[in-house]
Structure formats: C-alpha cells, structure tokens
C-alpha cells in the first residue's frame, strides 16, 4: 500500500485559496489602516475621529443596527412564542416560509420595498389614504429602520425558534403546580433559560445590520451616510479613492463587531449555566 503524496499536501490547495482570498485581504486592511503616506501612524483614525462626516456614519450605523435589531428581536420573540403554541402543520409551514423570506435580501429586497413603500408604493398610498402617515420616506432613517427590521425578523426567528422549541412543557407544568403563574414562570424560568439564545441572536442581528450594504446601496446609493457605504465609496467611488482610510474605517467596523461579541460573551458567562438538553 503506497501513498501517492503525503496526506498534508491535500490540505494545501484549500489553505492557499483561503489565505489568499480571506486572510490576506484582512491582513492588508490591518496593515494599511496604519500606513499614512508610506510610514506608520494613526493619522487615518485621527481623521475619522475628528471628521463629523465619518462620526455621523458610525453613529447612524450603530443607531440603525441597534434599533432594527431590537425591533426585529421583539417581533421574532413574539412570533416564536406564538409558533410554539400553534398546530404542527401551520408551524412547519410558517418556518418554511420564514426560511424563504430570509433568502430575500440585498438588491431585490430594496426593489420590493420601493414598490411597496416608495413614494408611489402601494402601501404608502394606502396608508396615506387612511391617514395613518403623511410624509413617510423609504429613503430616510425611518424608512431604513423599517427595511432593516424586515430582514432581521426572519433571521431572528430562525435563530430563536429552536430555543423556544426547547422550552419544555414539563417546566411550565411543574412551575404551575408549585404556585407560579404565567408571569412568574417567564420571569424565573422561561426568560432565564432563553437568555443565552436571546443574547446570541441579538449579537448576530447587530452584526448583520452593521455589515449590511447591498440593500442600502440599492435603495439610496451613497446618499445615506452609513459605515459600509462610506467604506465602499472610499475604494470604489468615482473620485478621491482613499484605500488606507477605507481600511481604517473597515477596521473600526470589525472592532465594533468584535466588541459586541465580547460583550455578549461576557454577559453569557455572568448568567447562569444552562444545561443543553
């Protein structure tokens, strides 16, 4: 039994591609962010920190992400809770539908929302006629929050549903026999058991929103000031390409995502250990 090649050689093609197209670009960003006109320095970060324009982009990215993640999470929680209480066929069907809508993202989503809620959108007109809204604009902060929330809901539901399905009916029964009503059950058992899943899902939703680019780009091109829009514009805009500044901003984005994850891990470690059953 002879070997054609040493086994580890079979790992090399993969390693090569992964390093070249995933790790090297990240490395390049990490290096170039600190390169100011040929020498090391924090100039780009200073520029970002002092520019109201960039600070606005960071602030708006954080704002839209937090708000849409929170709204998406709340709606997903309600939906998942109700789903556990509905009949099997309806539940399976709804999960399949949610899966389907979670694939509907990016440019097509933006176009669909233009048709639904654009200046002449079906829903805009309908709501205006009923008098519920008067000057809604899809291209504003509110509009972006609506569309972000929309794409957070299916993702949140898919991530949370297994946790909700894991809440055992036994626990509720045992709690009720020990004197706990519905509120006491949720405060002492339901929510504490779900906490890791909720925290994890919230983190993923925030990361998802912070990194989102295609939808906003298709919707407002570069006219709404967000981090991803700024980064892309600095490397592929029409004039004044500043790749090193883009790297610095990209590094800040990655840093923010890492921070969110760390906070979540820290909270998780502080919370009670939950059995995986």
């Amino acid at each position, binding site marked *: 039994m002879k070997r054609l090649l040493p086994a580890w050689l079979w790992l090399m093609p993969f390693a090569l591609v992964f390093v070249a197209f995933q790790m090297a670009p990240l490395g390049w960003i990490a290096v170039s962010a600190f390169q100011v006109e040929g020498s090391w320095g924090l100039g780009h970060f200073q520029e970002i920190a002092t520019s109201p324009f960039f600070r606005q982009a960071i602030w708006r990215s954080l704002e839209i992400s937090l708000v849409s993640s929170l709204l998406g999470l709340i709606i997903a929680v309600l939906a998942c809770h109700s789903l556990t209480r509905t009949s099997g066929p309806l539940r399976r069907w709804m999960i399949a539908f949610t899966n389907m809508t979670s694939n509907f993202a990016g440019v097509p989503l933006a176009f669909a929302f233009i048709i639904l809620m654009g200046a002449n959108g079906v829903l805009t007109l309908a709501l205006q006629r009923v008098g519920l809204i008067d000057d809604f604009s899809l291209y504003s902060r509110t509009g972006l929050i609506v569309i972000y929330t929309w794409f957070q809901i299916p993702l949140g539901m898919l991530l949370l549903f297994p946790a909700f399905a894991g809440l*055992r009916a*036994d*626990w509720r*029964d*045992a*709690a*009720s*026999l*020990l*004197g*706990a*009503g519905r509120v*006491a059950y949720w405060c*002492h*058992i339901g929510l*504490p*058991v779900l*906490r890791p899943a909720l925290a994890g899902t919230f983190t993923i939703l925030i990361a998802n929103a912070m990194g989102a680019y295609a939808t906003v780009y298709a919707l407002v091109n570069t006219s709404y000031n967000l981090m991803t829009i700024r980064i892309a514009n600095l490397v592929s805009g029409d004039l004044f390409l500043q790749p090193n500044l883009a790297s610095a901003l990209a590094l800040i984005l990655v840093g923010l995502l890492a921070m969110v994850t760390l906070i979540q891990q820290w909270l998780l470690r502080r919370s*009670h*250990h*939950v*059995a*995986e*059953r």
Partner: protein
Amino acid sequence: MTTLTAAPYARDHLPTLDRCDTVAEVATRQQGTTATASPDYLRLESLAKRFGETQVFSQIDAEIAKGEFVTLLGPSGCGKSTLLRAIAGLNTLDEGRIMVGGEEITSLPPQQRGVGMVFQHYALFPNMRVTDNVAFGLRMQKVPQEERGRRVDEVLRLVELREHADKFPHQLSGGQCQRVALARALVVEPRILLMDEPLSALDARIRRHLRQQLRDIQKTLGLTTLFVTHDQEEALMMSDRIFLMHDGRILQQGDAEALYTRPRSHQAAGFMGHYNVLSGEQAHALLGTVSRAARVALRPEAIYLQPVSEASPGGEVPTHAGPGCRGVIRRRQLLGNIVRYAVECAGIELSVDALNRGSRHLLAEESEVLVFVDLDEVQELEE
C-alpha cells in the same frame, strides 16, 4: 371501600408486558400496609376525558385514603398519565369531579390545588441550582428567606442530597435529578403527591434503589400518593393498592396480592405476570374439569413439570393437582433464578416457570414431561 368500575369489556389483544422477571418473588415480598384514616381523602367521581373523537378515559371512580400509596398501572396509552395530569389540573376534564379532603378542586387552577407532582423526565428548571429548584415553590408562596432555607435544607437531608445543594441539574445523575424533583414537590407540603412514571427514565439499578427510598419517604411523611407506572414489578412492590387501567377504564383494583393472584379479566391476566390464558375448551382438555367461565388463567408458577421417567409425582407437586397430562418441552429459557419452559400439552402451548435448582434438575428441550396444574390456582376470568 372503593367504587370499582371494571366494566365488561371486549377486545382480544393482550397488552404486552414491559418487564417479565421474578414477579412471583416480588409478590411474596410486597408489603401490604393499609392506611386506616379517612377512607376517601381523595375522591374521583366519574371522571371522563376526550381528545376530539378519542375517549382517553371514562367512568373513573376512586376513593383513596389519607396516607395511602395507590398505583395506576397500565400499558402505555391507557390514559393513566392523562388522568394524573387532570388531577393535577394540567388537563381539563370533560366530566366528573375531584375532591380532596372534602373540598372540590375540579376547576381550580393547578397553582391552588395543593398538589405536588414528580415528572418522568424530572422537569427540573435548568437555570437554577438544586436549592433554588427546591425553594421555588416556597418562593412562590412568599415564605420568608430563613424559613425557606431551613425547610429546603430539611427536605434535602430527607432525600440525601445536601452535599449537592449548589449544583445545577445538568451536573447531577438521573437518580439525583429525580430526588431533587421529589424534594421540590415535597417541600411545599402538598396534600397529594402525584408521580408520573418517575422511575422509568432511570437505569435498572438506580430504579430499584430509588423505589425503596421513595416508598420509605412516603411512609415517613404519611403522604397520600398516586403513582403512575407501566411496570408491574414496581407497582407490586410499592403500592398499598393498585388500579389496573386499560383503554381508559379501571379494569380491576386491589392490593398487590389480590391483583397478582386473582386477575378477573383476560386483560388483567395478560398484564400481570406471565399468565397462560386458556379458552373453556382448552381448560377442559388440559384440566379435565368443566368450567363455567369462558376463559381461565393459569400462573406459570402454578404448573409443575415432571420427567416421564420418574415413577410417581415428586414432592414438589401439590396433592390437589390434577391428574397430570403428557407434554413435550419445546423451548427453555434461563432467567436467572427461574427457568421458563414452553410446554406443548393437549395441543396448547403453556408457559411454565420453575425454580432454577441447578443443571441436574433442568429438563431438556424436546423431552417428554408430565404436566400438573394446581387446581386451587386456576383463575376463572369474567368473560
């Protein structure tokens, strides 16, 4: 003392046994204590429950004395768990009422019934330590902190888990989990303790140990207990009284001895022990007697085998046994202290249990034997 509903009942399949070892042994070992206090502390009056088209159970009547340990025994799907959950208030009832100590609790929410429950899969709250799990009921009752601590400590001592007080459920073994669940149910001093197959998820050794411990604690506290199981050995060993359930009805009730030795229907006979159930003609062919009953039941240990070569009936065969009938041993199974023979005799295949008294006494497969039946142990069945 008890309203019994063993309605005549026609279905031909016999429920399968979950366990089939040393039943005779258990029956002789079981304790027959009966409580004497108020005979109807827990009263169930014609309870009935449907899920859509299916009748889960109906005509359930029972009176259970204070401090009594009563087991609902039956194959899975016979409605015993649903009945237990209905008593706990976790399911609604379609008909009937439930009284505890003279007070009707039929439509009280579970929180107000004063009923404790132990579940098959423990149902411990995974986010709480053992102490917090046990203290939960007291917390809901707003029992002050110090008293809570004292009572939790007491009950943990009772179930021998004090050293695990600070652990989380996932750090405990199944047996320990179930003891925590028991402590959690006991600490609030429930009027009735309900147990839904509490030992089924445990392995055999732990199960036997915990069985004894459960029974001891129940006796110490004088706790009125309703225990659900499909394991007849468990039921025989633990209960003051057993209700045998089948297809949503109570087939028969009585203490372990009565239920084991005197089944009244073929379902009961099929579920208890390893009964041979014979039709009238088969009984006639085998025993030579004419029975009024359509069927009779024969316990496998009430049948005696003797090699044809031996001249006279051995010392083991009771004097009031029948004349003896020629048979052939078809199969032999060694079940430890018991040898189970399948004997073909008068065209009937009988299951016969004999004590395993060493290889010299074992009868060979395909050998001819004389079959004697202890006529006192022939049980006539109602249908």
